[in-house]
Every structure is written in structure tokens, then in C-alpha cells.
């Protein structure tokens, strides 16, 4: 079992410190929920871990071995907020390159894949494409999965379908998930971390989310 650790991350935009005291670790078999207000740096933190955003200081390592780019050699996969599939290639061809062969049967059995495997991304509606892209990342080869707002742009019933898939996937992988739909995050996560004033607060009791001013009530 591997452990992903992100530490000493410092990110500044236009002289404003976005991230300054970030400590986060995620073991395979664990789902970490990352919460925080708009603009607090949740997506930036995920991009720094993935390796597509440079920070002034950062340590990202797996089993205490520093990794420069998280995506190299399929160590970490990242679901961005935007659509990422090339629009001119059939979905089954794209999926075969991304999905872990060990998870292929599970992925290929998903109703959303069955419906659209022979279409291109350009022929699928926004919400359904989002669902397909999320499923591809969850079933990818990576040891750790970063999901940036997977519950946004999809219907509540689709969100309910995701949660068991995320839990099942977490048996083999470490998952860090962030979204504004905090109730979904609380439901699916083993641990919750709140990003506030650039620092990570490890939440042990959901009441603390009220104390820190993230929500007004549960």
C-alpha cells in the first residue's frame, strides 16, 4: 500500500498567499474529502500534486519518494473541472488507453459506457460526458486519483451512482475529492480536510465545519 504525501506547499498569486501551510496525506484504500470556499486554493492544490501547476515551494511524494510530476508513469490521475477528452475520436478508443486493464470489465459494464462507447465526445451531452470522463479517471491505471468537482454538472441521481463506484475504487487506490456539494463529500470520504486561509484543517467532527465558518448548519 502506497501513501501520497503533500507537504510544505506555498503558492502565491500577485503577492497574495493562496496556500502556505498545507499538509495532506492519503493512503491507498482511503478517500480524502477536501472542502473550502471558492478561491481558497482547492483546485490549485490538486494541480500542484498532479504536477501541472508550479508552486514556490512544494513537496509531493509517494512513500517518501519525491515525485516531480504526479502524472509521470501513471502514478496520479486528475479529473479537471473542464472536459478533457479529444472530441474527434471514439470514446471506446480513448477509454482503452486510459482505463486500467484490471478494471476494464467493471468500466465496460457501466450503463453510460454501454450507451456511448461508439460515439465521439462531441456527440455526447455535457452531463453525460462529464460522467464518462469521471468514470474513466476513477478506473484509470493511476495509484492515486484526484477528483476536482466530480458532482458538479451532473444530476443528483448520477451523483448517487458515483458514490459506490468511488468507494469500490478506493479499495485499490487513494482518492482525493473536492466539491462544493459538501454532503456528497461527507458521505463518500473517510477523512475530511478543510482548506481555510491557505492552511489545511483536519476535520475530526463535522461540527468543526460550522466552527470554521464553512457551513452554517448540518
Amino acid at each position, binding site marked *: 500500500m502506497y501513501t501520497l504525501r503533500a507537504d510544505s506547499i506555498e503558492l502565491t498569486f500577485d503577492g497574495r498567499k493562496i496556500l502556505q501551510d498545507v499538509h495532506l496525506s492519503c493512503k491507498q484504500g482511503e478517500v480524502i474529502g477536501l472542502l473550502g470556499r471558492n478561491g481558497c486554493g482547492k483546485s490549485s492544490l490538486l494541480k500542484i500534486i498532479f504536477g501541472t501547476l508550479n508552486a514556490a515551494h512544494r513537496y509531493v511524494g509517494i512513500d517518501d519518494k519525491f515525485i516531480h510530476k504526479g502524472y509521470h508513469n501513471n502514478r496520479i490521475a*486528475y479529473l479537471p473541472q473542464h472536459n478533457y477528452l479529444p472530441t474527434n475520436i471514439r470514446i471506446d478508443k480513448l477509454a482503452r488507453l486510459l482505463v486500467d486493464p484490471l478494471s476494464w470489465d467493471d468500466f465496460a459494464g457501466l450503463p453510460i459506457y454501454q450507451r456511448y462507447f461508439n460515439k465521439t465526445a462531441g456527440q455526447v451531452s455535457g452531463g453525460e460526458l462529464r460522467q464518462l470522463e469521471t468514470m474513466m479517471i476513477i478506473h484509470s491505471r493511476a495509484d492515486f486519483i484526484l477528483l476536482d468537482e466530480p458532482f458538479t454538472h451532473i444530476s443528483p441521481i448520477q451523483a448517487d451512482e458515483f458514490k459506490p463506484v468511488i468507494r469500490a475504487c478506493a479499495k485499490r487506490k487513494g482518492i482525493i475529492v473536492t466539491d462544493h456539494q459538501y454532503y456528497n463529500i461527507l458521505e463518500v470520504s473517510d477523512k475530511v480536510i478543510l482548506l481555510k486561509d491557505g492552511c489545511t484543517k483536519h476535520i475530526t467532527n463535522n461540527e468543526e465545519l460550522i466552527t470554521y465558518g464553512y457551513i452554517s448548519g448540518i
Partner: protein
Amino acid sequence: MANIRTLTWYFYKPILAWNIGFSISAIFYILVYGPRVTGFMFFWKAVGYASTIFLQSYSAKNVYMYYRNAGYSIKRMYTYALAFDIAIFILMLFILFTALHFFAPHYVYTKGR
């Protein structure tokens, strides 16, 4: 890691027409001005690559994440795709010069004399 040949093809496909256009125009200039402009045509191809990267970064940046999630950096994808393109260009030059040598040994370049 995903099959790099297939990934390279998917990465190259949207930029193929643009770069083939640069290759054909380069071949046309060599036909008109002669082999002495071949070096300059490699520079012309480099202009094509720079414009490709600029246009892709502007219009198709979102799909970069697909290739990163497949385990490869974008720098690496461009290196493979553009190496494939330059190989096609060199093959086109080889065919052109061989054809001229065998079928039109007295071909007179019409410009720049």
C-alpha cells in the same frame, strides 16, 4: 503506460492537415527555386511547428489533460508527433529528389537564376 504509438497518432491527427500544408508548400518552393532552398524550408517547417503549438495551446489546451492522465507530458507528445511529421517531410523530399533524378534529370528551376 498507454500505447504511445496510438496516443501519438491521436495527438498528431488534429494538427496533421496544418503541418502537411507546410510540407507541401515547402516541396513546392523547392521545385520552383531548386534544392539550394532546402535548408530554408526546414526553417519554414519550424515556423509551422511554432504556429501549431501556439494554435493548439490556444484552442485545444483542455485535451492535454487526457495525455497527462495517460502518463505522458505534453512536451513528450509534441516531440513524438513532430518527429513523426519531420520524418514524413524527409520522406517527401527523398521521393521528390529521386523522382527528379530519374525522370527529369535536366529539370530547370525556373526562378532565382
